[in-house]
């Protein structure tokens, strides 16, 4: 207790220096937490856009489909698959799809599109597709009309009621062609999805592709990401894995994870530079404090304080200083990060266009995750704990007589 008291009071011996050092730590934690929160938030937002609004966290395909992405790897939808939610409470719904690429054309304009056959109700349940409708009507299961993404509508200059011509190669190489009126236009947060999606009712799409009763994927709707791993472990017992592949979103989109990892690695360099600067600031304080206190350290060892105990006291003093700065950093960071979570930064102009070109939504909502703040505080504490070894080294080399003479 005396050691703690000694450490705490020593911090305030030079109040101004303590406040300056704590403030530098505060700003380091604030800056690093804010950067990390923005980066995490932007990525999570993108992943959420892509996963929640299209892919789903888990999909079942014919074995090899994901690699080839071909209609030849479609499979007959079995009733047992539709009953999976009854066997696994984590699965809230199953969403059958048949998808392939087709040329979409109107007048003189032609473009490649991803034509997806959906069960409109099931799809809406998972992806909230109906809410993405900006104009027109949502499609029904028995309709013979299409929903098109905003980007497709812009490129082909289509409006509600206009006719879209689709041409493709169907199952087993049959010709696939159809003319469909545009029932509605939907908008996606992900620019990648926005510029290529065309939805048909499942039955109509199966007819279009010449694949009666077949689907290319069965997406599983989960409400909780934490259910993915147990489900992935349990599903093989219920699905013939020699015939079907069960993939989670990370397996389906390794590029996204790699890009995220690459982005995080880039930030590590920034953090390194930031903490180097802060580290030198803290080291400066420690050097000054050590120099000023050598006489006192000499006295303390002279009157009987062991070097180990003195070292603990000084180490604790420096750590308390770092904790003070870190705690203040966390307390200041939290409301700021919360504000930017509720009011995300929205980019416009050229920067937004550049982000969109790379498939990023130009919105940066901050991620409010306590571990972000704790991690930054932990980095400061570890850094300080290492730097605080310097006075310990000096204490162990100290000769009381020389220290008191100096």
């Amino acid at each position, binding site marked *: 207790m005396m050691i703690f008291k*000694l450490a705490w009071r020593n911090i305030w011996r030079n109040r101004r220096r303590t406040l300056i050092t704590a403030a530098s730590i505060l700003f380091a934690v604030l800056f690093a937490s804010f950067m990390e929160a923005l980066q995490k938030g932007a990525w999570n937002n993108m992943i959420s856009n892509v996963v929640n609004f299209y892919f789903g966290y888990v999909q079942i395909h014919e074995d090899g489909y994901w690699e080839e992405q071909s209609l030849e790897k479609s499979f007959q939808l079995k009733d047992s698959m539709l009953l999976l939610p009854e066997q696994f409470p984590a699965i809230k719904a199953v969403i059958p799809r048949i998808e392939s690429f087709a040329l979409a054309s109107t007048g003189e304009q032609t473009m490649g599109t991803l034509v997806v056959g959906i069960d409109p109700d099931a799809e809406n349940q998972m992806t909230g597709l109906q809410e993405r409708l900006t104009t027109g009507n949502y499609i029904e299961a028995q309709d013979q009309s299409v929903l098109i993404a905003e980007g497709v509508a812009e490129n082909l200059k289509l409006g509600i009621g206009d006719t879209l011509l689709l041409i493709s190669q169907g199952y087993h190489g049959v010709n696939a062609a159809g003319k469909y009126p545009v029932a509605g236009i939907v908008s996606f947060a992900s620019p990648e999805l926005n510029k290529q999606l065309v939805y048909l009712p499942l039955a109509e799409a199966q007819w279009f592709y010449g694949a009666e009763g077949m689907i290319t994927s069965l997406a599983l709707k989960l409400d909780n990401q934490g259910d993915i791993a147990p489900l992935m472990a349990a599903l093989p017992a219920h699905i013939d894995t020699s015939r079907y592949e069960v993939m989670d979103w990370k397996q389906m989109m390794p590029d996204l994870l790699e890009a995220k990892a690459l982005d995080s690695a880039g930030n590590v360099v920034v953090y390194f530079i930031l903490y180097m600067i802060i580290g030198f600031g803290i080291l400066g304080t420690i050097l000054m404090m050590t120099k000023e206190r050598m006489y006192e350290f000499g006295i*303390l*060892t002279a*009157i009987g304080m062991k070097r180990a105990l003195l070292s603990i006291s000084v180490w604790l003093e420096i750590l308390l200083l770092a904790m003070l700065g870190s705690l203040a950093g966390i307390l200041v960071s939290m409301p700021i990060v919360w504000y930017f979570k509720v009011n995300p930064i929205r980019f416009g102009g050229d920067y937004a266009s550049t982000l969109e070109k790379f498939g990023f939504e130009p919105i940066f909502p901050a991620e409010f995750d306590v571990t972000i703040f704790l991690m930054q505080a932990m980095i400061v504490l570890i850094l300080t704990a290492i730097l605080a070894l310097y006075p310990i080294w000096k204490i162990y080399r100290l000769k009381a007589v020389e220290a*008191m003479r100096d």
Partner: protein
Amino acid sequence: MSVITTKGVTKTYNPEKIPVHALNGVDLEIKEGEFTAIVGPSGSGKTTLLNIIGGLDRPSNGSVQINQTDIATLSDNQLIDFRKENIGFVFQAYNLIPVLTAKENVEFVMLLQGKSKAERDSRVNALMKAVGLETKINKRPSELSGGQQQRVAVARALAPKPRFILADEPTANLDSHSTANLLDLMLELNQKENVTFIFSTHDQRVIDRARRVITLVDGKIETDEVRA
């Protein structure tokens, strides 16, 4: 009974370059309850001798026995423990811990000794009363005068019940009044509690009241006068 015995103690600084012989064979015996002043001109080796007797420095040659323990054979950590249990220090510049109150300063070494709170409180209160600062126990050093700080330093040195107290020029920074008060206090403690005091000093006021005066010149004992 001898508390301290030194035999042939020498101390040479910088032995490999330009050697400085601070002590040249000091043989000394200090008995329990003595009130001894070590005097001599600057550079005569007073502080060096005190540092060696106090286990803060090691002799180049010779032995220092304190209560039958040859302190030259102790390791660094053992020496720290030895000092904590056996020796009280009073320094010229008081050297109290600035962030602790007078009471906390006095009980600090007792805490290091692992004494109970009750024992500490009782000892600290008695000592603060003895040094006449019972009303200042919660003051920090910066709130005390030089004389008061030196009294707290004396109380701190006495708190762990050491075998003897080494005081290096304890009155050098004090005015006449404070010096007289401090000497009265130390003599009283010496007589009442039979505490052995050893001073290094230039101060004639201290020398006048010492019962034994050892004069060092060029690192050797020139005179050793015991007064009645």
